[in-house]
C-alpha cells in the first residue's frame, strides 16, 4: 500500500478573476521508504504541495489518501492528531520557539500527546542525542548556530516517531557545511526506514534522494527515480531556480528605480547614461533565461 496517494489534487486561492492556482490537478504516489526531492522555481507550488501532504492545508479538489485513509476532508482536530502522530515537519526557518530551551522545543509534540514530563524529557533527550546535540539541551535557540537549530528542529520532527518527514527547504538558510550536516542526518533517518520528502533548490542535494520530482506552475512536469548518490538527470538544468544576482543586475535595478522616481528631472546626459546601462543589463537578463 502506498503511503501517499494524491489523485488530481488542486489547490486554488482567491475567488473569481483573482483565482490563483497553486496546485493544478497533481497526481502523485509515494511508497513507504522513499526519499523524494522536490525541485522547481519559486512559486511553483512546492510548499503548497508539502502543506497538503503534511495535512496543514486541505486541497480544494481531488482525493488524498495517507496510508490508505481518505484525509482530504477531515476535521481540523483530526488533521492535527495525524500531524502529531504521523508527520514530522522541518521548516526552512527552523521555527523553534525562542523562549524555550532546545529540550523543551523537542518535547513540545509530546506535550500535545499528553505524555508526562518525565517521559517527555527522556524521549526528547534521546532525540537530541540522535542528532548529536545532547550537550545542548538547555541552550536557547539564539545560543545555537543555524545548523544546530535545524538539527533541533529535526529532533522535534522525529520525537513522535512519524512515518513521514516533510522538509520544506531544510537547508535554505544554511551554509554548505551545515547543509551537508543536515542532509546527512535526513538521509540517515531515511535509511532507518522513514519516508522523507524534501524541497530543495540545490541540485547537488538530489544525491540524497531516491526520486526527484520537478514542478512548474502548480504541476509536476517530470518525475524520475535516481540512485542514492547520483544527482538527478535534469536537476542541474533547472538553473532558473537558483536565485542569481550580479553587480549588473543591481545596477539595472537602481536605474529603473531612478527613472521611475516621479518629479525628479535630471539633466539629459546622466539620463542617457542610465538608459544605456538599462538596455545593457536587460540583454544580460535575457541571455540568462
Amino acid at each position, binding site marked *: 500500500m502506498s503511503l501517499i496517494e494524491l489523485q488530481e489534487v488542486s489547490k486554488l486561492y482567491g475567488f473569481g478573476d483573482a483565482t490563483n492556482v497553486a496546485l493544478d490537478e497533481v497526481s502523485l504516489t509515494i511508497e513507504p521508504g522513499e526519499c523524494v526531492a522536490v525541485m522547481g522555481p519559486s512559486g511553483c507550488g512546492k510548499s503548497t504541495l508539502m502543506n497538503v501532504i503534511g495535512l496543514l492545508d486541505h486541497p480544494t479538489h481531488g482525493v488524498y489518501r495517507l496510508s490508505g485513509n481518505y484525509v482530504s476532508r477531515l476535521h481540523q482536530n483530526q488533521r492535527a492528531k495525524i500531524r502529531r502522530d504521523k508527520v514530522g515537519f522541518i521548516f526552512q526557518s527552523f521555527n523553534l520557539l525562542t523562549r524555550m530551551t532546545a529540550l523543551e522545543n523537542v518535547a513540545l*509534540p509530546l506535550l500535545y500527546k499528553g505524555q508526562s514530563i518525565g517521559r517527555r524529557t527522556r524521549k526528547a533527550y534521546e532525540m537530541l542525542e540522535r542528532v548529536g546535540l545532547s550537550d545542548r539541551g538547555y541552550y536557547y535557540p539564539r545560543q545555537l548556530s543555524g545548523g544546530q537549530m535545524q538539527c533541533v528542529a529535526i529532533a522535534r520532527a522525529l520525537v513522535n516517531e512519524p512515518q513521514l518527514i516533510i522538509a520544506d527547504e531544510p537547508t535554505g538558510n544554511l551554509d554548505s557545511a551545515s547543509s551537508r550536516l543536515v542532509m546527512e542526518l535526513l538521509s540517515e533517518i531515511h535509511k532507518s526506514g522513514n519516508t522523507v520528502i524534501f524541497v530543495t533548490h540545490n541540485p547537488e542535494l538530489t544525491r540524497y534522494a531516491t526520486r526527484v520530482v520537478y514542478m512548474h506552475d502548480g504541476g509536476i512536469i517530470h518525475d524520475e527515480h535516481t540512485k542514492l548518490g547520483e544527482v538527478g538527470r535534469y536537476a542541474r538544468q533547472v538553473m532558473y531556480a537558483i536565485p542569481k544576482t550580479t553587480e549588473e543586475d543591481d545596477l539595472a535595478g537602481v536605474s529603473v528605480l531612478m527613472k521611475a522616481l516621479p518629479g525628479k528631472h535630471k539633466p539629459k546626459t546622466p539620463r542617457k547614461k542610465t538608459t544605456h546601462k538599462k538596455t545593457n543589463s536587460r540583454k544580460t537578463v535575457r541571455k540568462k533565461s
Partner: protein
Amino acid sequence: MSTMRRGNILQATQSLKNAKARSFLTMLGIVIGVMAVICVVCIGQGVKQQIGNRVDHFGKDLITIRPGNNNDSTFGNGVLLASRLSLSTSSLLTTNDLKAVQDTPGVRLSVPLSTLPGSAEGDNRVDSPLVIATGKDLPEAINQKIAFGGFFGDDNHPNIVVLGPNLAQQLFDERVPLGRSLNFHGQNFVVGGIFAPFDAAPFSLSADFNNALFIPFAAAQAIDANALGIYQILAKPDKPSNAQAVAKAMQTNINRERGDSHDVSVLTQSSSLDASNQIVHLLTLLTVGVAAIALVVGGVGIMDVMLVSVTERMHEIGLRKAIGATNQQILRQFMTEALVLSTAGAIIGGLLSLLVIVILRWFTGLHPVVVWQAFVLAMGLAVVTGAVFGTAPALKAARKDPIEALRNQ
C-alpha cells in the same frame, strides 16, 4: 491530562513573565477591582458592627425617651444625646414625664438623665465638668460596670457621687479616690464609686462619660430644682421581647400626660438600629456596584492584553498547530494564560485588601471586619471575569488556520 494542564500553567506563567510590564498593568486592573469590592464590603460591615456593638452594649431592650418629635425622621439615633449645650430648656422633659414612664406597665426600671452647670472642687478644681444627675439604676440601664466602690443607692444617702475614671484623676490625682469628698455648689459630696472606663463615647459623640460626675437626682433637685431639666429618660422593660409594646404604651402615657402635644419621642434600640443598618446596607450596595464596574474594566484589560498577545504570537500558534496541537489545546493554553493573570490579580488583590484592613484598623477609627464572603465573591468574580474576557482572544487563537498563522513572522 493533568500533566497537560500543569504544562499549560507553566507555559502561561512563562509567557506572562516575558511581557512583565504588560502583565503587571493588566493585573493591576483586576487587583484594584478586587480590592475595591472587598474593602467596601468590609468597611461597611465594620460600621454596621460598630453601631451594633454600641447598641448591644446598652442592651437591645433599652428604651430612650427624649424631647422633640423624632419619630418621623428615620435618621434619628436613639442613643445620641444631642450636644448638651445645644438643648434649650423649653424642650426638656419633666419629672411628670419621668413619672409617666415609671407608671407604664411592664417597665422594670427607668432613670432620668439631666445635667447641672457648675464646677467641682476636690483636691483640684475642675471648671464645668459634665455633671449628670441620674437615678440609682443607671449602671444597669447602660450596662456599665463600676470599677471601684458602688453606685449610689436609694435616696437615703443623697450626698454620694460617682466619678468617671478620668475625672477622678483630674480631681484627686489618684485612680481610686474612694471616700474622698468634693465640693459642688457649696455642698459636700462623698465619692462612693468610680466607673469602669467607658468605651469611646458610648452615649454621644460630644459627651464623654469618662469625664462625668454622677450625682443622685434628688441631690440635684435639692441644689436647684428649677434649673434641672431632664434631657433623656432611659428605661428597660421587664422582658426584652416586650420592648416595642412597652415603648408604645409609654408613648401613649406621655402623650396623655402632656395633653397630646406629641413633642416627646420614645425610641427603641431596634428601630434606630434598623434605620442605620438600612442606610449602611444601601451605601455598601452602591459602592460595591461601582467597584464591580472597576472589576469588569479590569476584565476588559485582560481581553486587550490577550488579543495583543495572540496577534504577537501568531507564528508560534501556527507552529504549535503544525506539530500537532488541536484547537482545544491552543484554546486551553490561552485560556490558562488569562486565568493565571486574573487569578494572580485576585490573590494579590485579596492580600492587599487584608493589608488595607489592618492599616485601617490601626490608624483610623474605622474597624473593618474581614468578611470572608466578600473575599470569595470578589476573587471568584475576578477569576470569572478573566475567563469570560479571555475566551474571545483564546478562540481567535484556536481557530487560526495553521498556514496563515505560520506566515506571520
